[in-house]
């Protein structure tokens, strides 16, 4: 069974540009979570999608947005990139009713 897959693995952008990160959950998982892991700051909750709807949002500005598609894959968009957006972005999926998250390997975004 394929795990959670994220793309791209690495992404380099410059300030002001836009970045799009993608996540495919485990087959059958309907919930997708996005976390930001900046150096030394642990995992910061960004967004939670379930059944195509945004269910919860972390304390991030509106330039962080996303969506979940009918096949439950998800996209995270970051507009007007700032240097401090450089981080590892982790996607995780969860089976409805389950407690445990399964993480992807992450997408490392570098903003120059």
């Amino acid at each position, binding site marked *: 069974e394929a795990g*959670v897959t994220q793309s791209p693995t690495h992404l380099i952008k410059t300030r002001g540009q836009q970045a799009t990160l993608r996540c495919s959950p485990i087959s059958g998982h309907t*919930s997708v*979570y996005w*976390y930001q*892991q900046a150096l*030394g*700051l*642990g*995992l910061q*909750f960004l967004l*939670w999608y379930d059944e195509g709807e945004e*269910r*919860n949002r972390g*304390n991030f500005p509106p330039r962080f947005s996303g969506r979940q598609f009918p096949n439950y894959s998800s996209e995270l968009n970051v507009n007007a990139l700032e240097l401090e957006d450089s981080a*590892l972005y*982790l996607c*995780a999926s969860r089976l409805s009713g389950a*407690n*445990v*998250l*399964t*993480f*992807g*390997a*992450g997408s*490392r975004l570098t903003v120059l």
Partner: protein
Amino acid sequence: SQQGEEDPQALSIQEGENATMNCSYKTSINNLQWYRQNSGRGLVHLILIRSNEREKHSGRLRVTLDTSKKSSSLLITASRAADTASYFCATVSQGGSEKLVFGKGMKLTVNP
């Protein structure tokens, strides 16, 4: 905002020794989970303990939960060099948000 706080932030031990990591949290929880992360990759779920449980075992892992003190500990017995990783506690708060909030993590180094 962080819910869990791991303590110590870094621990270095010799192979064969036991490693104990502590986690404190702030709100009432449904469950507490421990995850492991190798070298900035995705997180892997280790063990889950529910709010009505006090202790749980899984292989060389032992986790305890004290809801009166809002704290948990993870014990890794007979550590191995391969246990070198960052360890995170994560909580799901009561109230049904189903949002998993992570601590900042603790870096464990097991020296051969």
